[in-house]
């Protein structure tokens, strides 16, 4: 009996919801992860805000650093919760179940991304409290709707990049862990997480074209603090670029996953641990 399109859609929708559920509920059950994901980025953010104070910088720069600290939580989730996810699954001996399941792998990725965004948003509350409550920074959003639009487009682009990384890391063993570490501080710098990306000049422009974190953050800063954000490009152009990056990374993730799944099977690396 062949499946109808409706059956296939329903199956993939169920897989998405199920994977998102696991991500949200599982993360709540592990207090150490909550501390790691919520508290540690906030502490790093506080240190950078105090550096601005130590240097005698205007207050508006502290706001930029706080917004960067909040976005860093999402980047950590993209790296470790999306990019390295198939590596974790391989280590736990569950990766073969993903490939044996009747649903699309992209449906599983989408569930991971949706659950990741929800869970991370809950965890940014700590950074928001630290930034706005304890450190006393202030924002003046010009349009809440525009802010929501920028946030959604940024998240789609970021998590699509996470899906691509996840596919690429499928081949790797221990290197996946190291690569995730390699993509923290250097990406924070190239994305202007704690200073306006415009400071980096052409280098910042190139980085913004490759990694959606800097572009999304720059757009959000412009919506929240206006000219004090020292934006790279007008918000409308940044939204367009982010949308383009989201589409490119989605397609890339799908192609890379199909290719690397095949390659991993051929080389017998799909179930290999600690290579």
């Amino acid at each position, binding site marked *: 009996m062949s499946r109808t399109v409706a059956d296939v859609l329903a199956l993939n929708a169920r897989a998405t919801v199920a994977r998102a559920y696991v991500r949200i509920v599982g993360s709540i059950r*592990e*207090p*150490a*992860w909550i*501390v*790691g994901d919520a*508290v*540690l980025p906030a*502490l*790093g953010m*506080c*240190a*950078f805000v*105090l*550096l*601005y*104070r*130590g*240097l*005698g*910088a*205007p207050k508006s*720069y502290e706001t930029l*650093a706080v917004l960067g600290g909040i976005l860093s939580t999402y980047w950590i989730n993209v790296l470790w919760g999306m990019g390295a996810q198939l590596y974790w699954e391989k*280590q*736990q001996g569950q990766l073969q179940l993903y490939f044996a399941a009747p649903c699309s792998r992209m449906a599983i990725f989408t569930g991971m991304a949706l659950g990741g965004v929800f869970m991370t948003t809950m965890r940014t509350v700590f950074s928001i409290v630290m930034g706005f409550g304890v450190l006393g920074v202030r924002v003046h959003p010009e349009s809440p709707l525009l802010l929501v639009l920028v946030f959604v487009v940024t998240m789609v682009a970021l998590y699509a990049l996470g899906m691509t990384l996840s596919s690429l890391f499928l081949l790797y063993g221990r*290197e996946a862990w*190291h*690569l995730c*570490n*390699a993509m*923290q*501080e*250097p*990406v*924070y*710098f190239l994305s*202007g*997480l*704690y*200073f*306006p990306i415009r*400071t*980096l000049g052409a280098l910042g422009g190139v980085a913004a074209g490759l990694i959606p974190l800097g572009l999304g953050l720059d757009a959000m800063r412009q919506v929240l603090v206006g000219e004090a954000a020292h934006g790279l490009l007008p918000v409308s152009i940044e939204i367009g670029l982010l949308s383009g990056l989201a589409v490119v990374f989605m397609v890339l993730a799908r192609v890379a996953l199909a290719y690397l799944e095949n390659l991993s099977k051929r080389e017998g690396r799909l179930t290999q*641990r*600690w290579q």
Partner: protein
Amino acid sequence: VRALAARVKLSAWLGWQIESNWADPLTFIVYSVLRPVGTALILAGMFWTVAGHGARPEAFAAFYVANAFHEYVVRVLIGMGWIVVEEREEYETLRYVYVSPVGLLNYLTGRSAVKFALATTSVVLILVLGWTLLGVRWDLGLVRPGLFAVSFVIGLVATLFVGFIVAGWALVLPRAAINLNEGIGVGLYLLCGVIFPIDLLPHGFRELSLLVPFTYWYEALRRSLLGRSASTLLASWSDAQLLGALAGSTIVLAVVSVWAFHALERRARRLGRLDHSTLF
């Protein structure tokens, strides 16, 4: 003493095998180059941004230098916790190390020697990068080698001993050890005023920072290399007072950490956590 030295030397040799031969160059590049240089560049980017708003280069140099030396805390002190995680979770060899005649404390000391060498590479790299490319320069005539040598050695001793406490907690808390390691690193970065004066810390945290030897260490390193303080609170202290506080807090912590390590080690054994693999 000869037997102890042989054990530490053997552990250092094993550490070198693990850190160099068993791993690929990617590991070295990521942890000794990319991450520390990435943080240094973030600081530089922040300074470039506010340089036109009256931020003084000499103030930034004081924070930049302390950030470079914080690599010892990240690699040696936090590295002790990572050694436990790797041995137990990754290689599943902690139980064999534990029952071997080397002794866990000697083993950790030996392994930390390699981490010290790697951290030194990162520190030199950050300072050279700062001096040559980022414009973080200061008057070399202000360098005081004697004060630097004494404070550097005492700070390293503090790093080693506080690392024992981190390793002890990692023995007791298998699942949470990774976050604990990262948390202590970030916590000390914030508490000890690595990239800002401790005067900016809220009341309570400021007093707490004065109990930690690294607060004095970073201050002594700034004075010995740049000839200036970052903190108004500590600026009025003489060099002797500063070194006394550094040495005193290090001695207290050393005694507490050895006692705490053995207590935590016994607890981990009692709870069956020595070979409790939780990650995979």
